[in-house]
């Protein structure tokens, strides 16, 4: 009898200890919250200080018959920058023969002297394609005999876009931004057309260039903590 009383008492104490332990864990534990947030990137250039962007035609180093590179670039940048820039966007035709004017401050200062708080987006571009051939191992389906490799001559059509971009202050003629982009991509489809490949390549330039000048956002993880 005495033994059973003792056992009951011990059981009660055990339950009380367990409760206290649970209570201590529930209140004294340290917590964190993982959050996905849109972190704005630092823009190299603050476009908000300008009221107008003038996109000029580009110096095309090698003209193509099947593709108007100059028009495509002007249209693309006008549209993409127009999505984010609140001011006016216009275009201007300039006849470039060499790269020399890009660094000539007087040239840009006198181009549109009435313009105030404006910038020019200009530069040179080259869009080339080539066919590369190589002997590659052919992929086999699983049900076929393993350990037998088959080599075959494969062709890839490569497109390369070289773009030298300048952002020039209309007031001072100084280059505020200058960067060379070289983007290249190979396609298994030998009939891949230039306009489609151009879109792939200019998208890559866009992600770098617009991030530089517009300071776009990136989704990143951060921890908020309470202890």
């Amino acid at each position, binding site marked *: 009898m005495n033994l059973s009383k003792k056992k009951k008492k011990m059981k009660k*104490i055990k339950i*009380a*200890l367990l409760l*206290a*332990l649970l*209570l*201590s864990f*529930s*209140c*004294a*534990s340290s917590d*964190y*919250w993982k*959050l996905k*947030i*849109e*972190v*704005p*990137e*630092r823009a*190299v250039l603050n476009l908000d200080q300008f009221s107008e962007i003038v996109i000029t035609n580009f110096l095309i180093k090698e003209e193509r018959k099947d593709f108007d590179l100059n028009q495509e670039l002007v249209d693309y940048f006008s549209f993409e920058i127009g999505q984010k820039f609140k001011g006016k966007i216009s275009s201007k035709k300039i006849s470039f023969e060499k790269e020399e004017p890009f660094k000539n401050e007087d040239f840009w200062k006198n181009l549109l002297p009435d313009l105030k708080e404006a910038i020019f987006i200009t530069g040179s571009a080259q869009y080339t394609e080539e066919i590369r051939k190589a002997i590659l191992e052919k992929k086999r389906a699983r049900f076929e005999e393993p350990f037998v490799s088959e080599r075959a001559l494969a062709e890839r059509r490569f497109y390369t876009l070289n773009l030298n971009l300048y952002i020039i202050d209309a007031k001072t003629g100084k280059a505020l*931004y*200058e*960067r060379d982009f070289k983007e290249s991509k190979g396609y298994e489809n030998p009939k891949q057309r230039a306009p489609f490949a151009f879109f792939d390549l200019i998208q890559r330039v866009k992600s770098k260039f617009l*991030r*530089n000048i517009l*300071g776009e956002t*990136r989704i*990143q*993880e*951060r*921890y*908020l*903590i*309470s*202890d």
Partner: protein
Amino acid sequence: MHKKLIIYFLFIALLALSFSGCTRQLLDNQLLFGIQAAQKDLWEEAIFRWKKVVLSNPKSAAAHNNLAVAYEKKGLWEEAKKEYETALELSPGNSHIKANYQNFKKNHESFKKEKKDEKN
């Protein structure tokens, strides 16, 4: 008898621990309120709450860390850097603060690299 005493002592110690934890959590209410606001994308509210915590307890590494995240979200880089550094000074071993600061620094370094590329 000796065994009983130990058990009672343990029980009281555990209770004291739990109460201290709860009291601290009550003090951290502002901090949690700020976190809830941030989760709802109300970052101004969150900053207000965490600033209050920092005012009453300048040694709260959590408040400094959370403020840094909020400043980063708002693009206030210098303020964010200062808060991360304070948080790390107060709690150098905290892995969450360290992870946040490393990601922040990575962004900062890629910005500097892009500036350098642009010059070249």
